[in-house]
C-alpha cells in the first residue's frame, strides 16, 4: 500500500513538472486528487487494511497529498508569472512617436525683459509707476531742465502733436509727475516702464521703443548709492560676474551725470564685434537729479537729493537673447515669437 502511494506521488510530481499550462495542471489535480482521482481511490481502499496499519498508512497518504498540492501550487505560480511576462512583452508601443501636442503661447521678449527688470527693482523697494505716452512739452522737456532751444533737445528728435503736446521721447516725464504728486514726502522710489518715441528709423533705431526709468529721492541719497543699486541690477540681470563701469556724461536733468557700461556679455570683456573690441557695452544713462528739476517739482534741493536712471529695454533684450537686428522685435514673425 505504501509502495502504491509513493508511486502515485512520483508519478504526480513528474506530470506536474512537465505541465506547460494551467489547464494541464487542472487536469492533473482532478486526475490525482479529485473525487475519482488515483490518490482518492487508494485512500478508499484503506478500509481493507489491517487496523493496526491504518494510522501509519493514513499518515503517509496525507504527506503524499500535501506534497502533490504544494507542487501544484508552486507550478501554477511559475506558469502565471511566465504568462504575464509573455503578455507584457507582446504589448509594445513605439515610444518614439510624439506625444499629444499642446501649444504653449509665448510672451514677447520685451515683456520678459521688462518683467525681469521690474522684479529686480521691486525687490529693492521700488514701486512701478506709469505715465501718459502723449505728453506735454512741459513734462517731457521743460521740467527736466530742457528749455526750448536747448541744444540737448537735438539728442531726442521729437514727434509733435501740437507745439505743446508731443509723443514722449523718454520715460523721464514720469519722474516729474511722480515728484509733483509726492512732494514734499520722502522717500520716493519708483521705476517707470513704458513706450517712448523718437523720429528715427533705421537698423539700430525704431521710432517706438521701450524704456525703464528709475528715481530715488530721500534726504541723503548719494551717487555711491546709485552705483550700488545699478551694480546689483547689472549682476542680477546679466550674471553675478558682470562688471560695471561709470563714465561721466551729460544729461540736462542730472548733475553729476554718468553712463554705465557693463563688461561685454558676449566676450566677457576680452573684446569682440558686439562691444567694438572695447570689452564694454553701454547699457544706461544716470545721474544725481539736477537741483533745478527737484525745485521745479516741489522739492528743496538742499533738503532732498536723489538719483535717476533710464535704460532701453530693447537694448537689454538684444544683449540678453543675442538678437542682432532691432527690427525683428517689432516684425512679430511667428518663427521669432515661438523662440521665447
Amino acid at each position: 500500500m505504501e509502495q502504491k502511494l509513493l508511486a502515485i506521488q512520483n508519478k504526480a510530481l513528474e506530470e506536474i513538472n512537465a505541465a506547460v499550462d494551467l489547464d494541464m495542471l487542472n487536469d492533473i489535480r482532478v486526475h490525482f486528487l479529485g473525487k475519482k482521482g488515483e490518490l482518492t481511490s487508494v485512500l478508499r481502499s484503506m478500509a481493507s487494511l489491517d487496523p493496526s496499519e491504518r494510522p501509519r498508512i493514513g499518515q503517509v497518504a496525507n504527506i503524499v497529498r500535501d506534497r502533490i498540492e504544494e507542487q501544484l501550487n508552486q507550478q501554477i505560480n511559475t506558469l502565471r508569472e511566465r504568462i504575464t511576462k509573455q503578455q507584457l512583452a507582446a504589448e509594445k508601443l513605439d515610444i518614439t512617436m510624439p506625444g499629444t501636442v499642446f501649444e504653449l503661447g509665448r510672451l514677447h521678449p520685451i515683456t520678459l525683459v521688462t518683467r525681469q527688470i521690474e522684479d529686480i527693482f521691486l525687490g529693492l523697494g521700488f514701486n512701478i509707476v506709469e505715465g501718459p505716452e502723449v505728453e506735454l512739452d512741459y513734462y517731457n522737456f521743460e521740467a527736466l531742465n530742457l528749455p526750448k532751444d536747448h541744444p540737448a533737445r537735438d539728442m531726442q528728435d521729437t514727434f509733435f502733436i501740437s507745439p505743446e503736446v508731443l509723443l514722449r521721447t523718454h520715460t523721464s516725464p514720469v519722474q516729474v509727475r511722480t515728484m509733483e504728486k509726492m512732494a514734499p514726502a520722502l522717500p520716493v522710489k519708483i521705476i517707470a516702464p513704458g513706450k517712448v518715441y523718437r523720429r528715427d528709423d533705421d537698423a539700430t533705431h525704431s521710432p517706438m521703443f521701450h524704456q525703464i526709468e528709475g528715481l530715488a529721492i530721500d534726504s541723503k541719497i548719494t551717487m555711491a548709492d546709485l552705483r550700488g543699486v545699478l551694480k546689483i541690477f547689472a549682476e542680477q540681470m546679466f550674471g553675478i560676474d558682470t562688471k560695471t563701469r561709470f563714465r561721466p556724461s551729460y544729461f540736462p536733468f542730472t548733475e553729476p551725470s554718468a553712463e554705465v557700461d557693463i563688461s561685454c556679455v558676449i566676450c566677457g570683456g576680452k573684446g569682440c564685434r558686439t562691444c567694438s573690441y572695447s570689452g564694454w557695452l553701454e547699457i544706461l544713462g544716470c545721474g544725481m537729479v539736477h537741483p533745478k528739476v527737484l525745485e521745479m517739482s516741489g522739492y528743496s534741493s538742499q533738503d532732498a537729493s536723489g538719483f535717476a536712471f533710464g535704460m532701453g529695454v530693447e537694448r537689454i533684450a538684444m544683449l540678453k537673447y543675442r538678437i542682432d537686428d532691432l527690427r525683428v522685435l517689432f516684425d512679430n514673425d511667428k518663427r521669432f515669437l515661438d523662440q521665447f
Partner: protein
Amino acid sequence: MRVSLKWLKEYVDINISPEELAERLTLSGLAVEGMEIPGKELSGVYVGKIFNIEAHPNADKLIICQISTGGEENYQIVTGATNVKVGDVVPVALENAKLSGGLVIKRAKLRGVESRGMLCSGAELGMDVSILPTEQAQGIMILDSKLPLGMDIKEALDLDDVVLILELTPNRGDCLSMIGVAREVATLLDKRLSLPESITAQENGTIEGFRVDIKDEHLCKRYVAKHFTKVKVAQSPEWIQRRLRAAGVRPISNIVDVTNYVMLELGQPMHAFDFDTIRGDIVVRTANKGERLVSLDGNERTLSEEMLVIADSSGPVAVAGVMGGLVTEVTEKTTNILLESAWFNPISIRRTSKSLGLRSESSSRFEKGIDLTGCQRAADRAAELLLEIGAGELSPGNIDNYPGIQPEKTICLRPERMNQILGINISVNEASDILTRLEFKVEKKDSMLLVSAPGHRTDVSIEEDLIEEVARIYGYDKMPYTLPFGASTQGIRTRIQALELLVKDCLASLGLNEVVTYSFTNPNFLEKNLISKESPLARLVKVHNPLSEGHSVMRTTLMPSLLEILSKNFSHRVSDMGIFELGKVFIPVENEKLPEENHILAIAAMGNTISGWNYKGKSFDFYYLKGIMETLFQRFAISGYTLSRDLQGTIFHPGKSARILIKDKCLGTFGEIHPGIIENYDLPAGVVGMEIDLNLFAEISVNQIKYRALPKYPGISRDLALVVNNEVVVQDIIKSIRKNSGQFLREIKIFDVYRGK
C-alpha cells in the same frame, strides 16, 4: 571732434600710449569713439623728385618718369598720371611697398618698358579724399618741394599720426578745440599745459576810417576785428594743411586755412571778409524782413527778422556765425581783408542754422557757447599766424567792441555737501587742486571754496557742476558701492499691474503668442477696416511731423495692428496663428490738451490650433475665441455679463459677433472679422478677433479668492433635452433654468445640439 596726437603733443607732454590716453579721456567724460591711423597699412613709400619725363614708345597715355629719392640709385617708373611735371616732388612707392587697401607694388613691364614702382594719389596713401582737392585725390599727390627726398611718406604727411575721434556731449563745447582737449589731458596726467604764444594785443581803439557798430548787444556781446593789407592769397604751407586734414577740414587758401586753424586750436570760429567789397562800416544787426543774401555755397537765402547778420551799408554780407556771403568772400584777387572774431548768442545761432538748414563747423561751436573772454586772443593768434606765413601786412589798430562784458561769477563749493552728494570723502585740498588744474579760480574761505569758472566753461554755473568736475577727474570708479540708507520702502505691483501680468500669462497658457506693435499707424486703417468717418474710432490724434504716412496717427483700436501681423505671417505661409497684445489706444478729448489713453487687450487668430497624429486641431472660430474669453473671465471671476448682437457698423461679421455687456457698460467685442476686411488684409476666411477694455475688466474682476466649503455628497448630473424654436437663444434658456433651479444647481453644460429638418 578729431584730435591729432601729434598736434596735441605741441601743447602737453603725453607719456602714455594712445590706447591708455583714450581710456583715461573716456573715463573722464570725453568719450573716445575710435582711433584712426591714416597710414596704418602703408610701407615702402618715400618722398621722390621727378627729374625727367619722356613719352612711352608704345602707349599714348603712359609716360616714363625718372625719379630720385635722394640716394645714388634712381628709379624708372611708368605712370598714366596727367598732373605731373619735371621737378615735382611726389610720393613714390618702390618695389614691395604696401599701399592703403593692401596693394603690394611689384616690379613690372608696362607695354614693354620696365617700371620699378608707382607714383601715388592721396587715396592710395589712405588719406580722406573728401577733403583733398580732386587733382590730389585722384591724380598724383604733389608734395611740398621743400620736403627732403627719401623721407618716409608717413612722416612727411603725418600719416603715422594717431587721430582720436571724440564723441563730445553737448555741454563740452570747450573741447571742440585742441587747447580744450589738451587742458583735459594736462589735468588728467597732471602735466603743464603750454599755450601757443601770441603777440600781445595791439593798442585798442580803432582801425582808421572803419567802425563796427553792434545794434543788438544781446545777440552779439563782442566783436573783435583786425585789418590786413597787401594780402597774397595762396595755398597755405604744408604744415597747416596737414593739421587741417588731420582734423577733417579741407584746406582752401592761406587766409581761410588760418581762420580754420585758429578755430580748431582755440575753439573760436572766425571769418575773413574781402575788405574791398565791404561798403562803409560793419553793422551787427538783425535782418530786415525779406532781406536776401547769397551765401558762400552760392545759394540765395531769404532772411527773417530774428536772424542776426553782419551788414554793411548795402545790406547783409554774412549770416552771423553761420555762413559768409559770396560777395565778400576771400578770393585770389583779394588784397585787403577784415578778420572777424566775435561772440554770437547760442540760441540765436541755433535757430538760424536750423531754419536755414545750414550747419557749419562755425555754427556748431557758437551754438554750444564759446569763450566770450577769448575773442581777442583768437584774433591775435590768427594775426600772428598770417604774419608768420607771410600772407599780408597787419594794419595798425584793433577793434574790440565788447558791450557784453560780464563780471566774474563766484560759485560756492561746500566740501561737506560735495561729499554728501557723491558718497565719498574728498579733501578740500584735493578738490581745490583738481579745479585749479582745470583753470578754475579757487579761493578758500572758512571751510568753503569760492570758485569762478574760466570763460571757456560756459556749462558750469552751479555748485553741482563743480561737484561733477571734481568727481569726474577724481574718477567715478573710485567711488564706493553703497545702498540707500533711510526709511525702507516696499516694492509692490499695483492691482492693474498685477492683473496685466496675470492676463498675459493666462493667454499665453491658452496657446496665444504675445505681440508688440507700434502705437501709431496709417490713417488708411479706417478705410481698410470699413470704419466710417462718423465712427468715434475715426477721431484721431495726429502726429504733426511723422516719419511717414504709415506712422502718422495714433491708433484708436488695436485690431488693425493685429490683422496686419496675421496678414504678414500668412504671406510667409503661416496659416495657423493666435496672437494677443496689451496696448494703449488714444482718444482725443474735447477741450483737453492730452488725449485719453485706454488700456486695451486685443486677440486675433486664424486657421486652426495645432494638430497631431492622434489629435485633430480645432478651428480658431467664433466659439473657440468665445471659449478663450470664458476661460479668461472665469480665471478673473467675471460673471454676470450678457452678450448682445448690436454690432452694426463695426469691424465684425454682423451675424457672428457679439458685444459683451456688463452693468450697461460695454466690456468688449468679439467675433469673426467682416469678410470685406479679411479681403482687404489678404487673410484666409474666418479670422476672429476680440477687443476688451482692460480698465473696466480690472474694475469688475474679483480680486479676492474666497473658498467655498465642499458639498458633503458627490454631485448628481441630470440630462435635460429641450425642443425649442430656432429663434430661441441658449442664453435665455440658461437664464430661465437658473431662475427656477433653486440653490443646489452648480453648473449648466450644453453637451449636444441637434437641428432637425
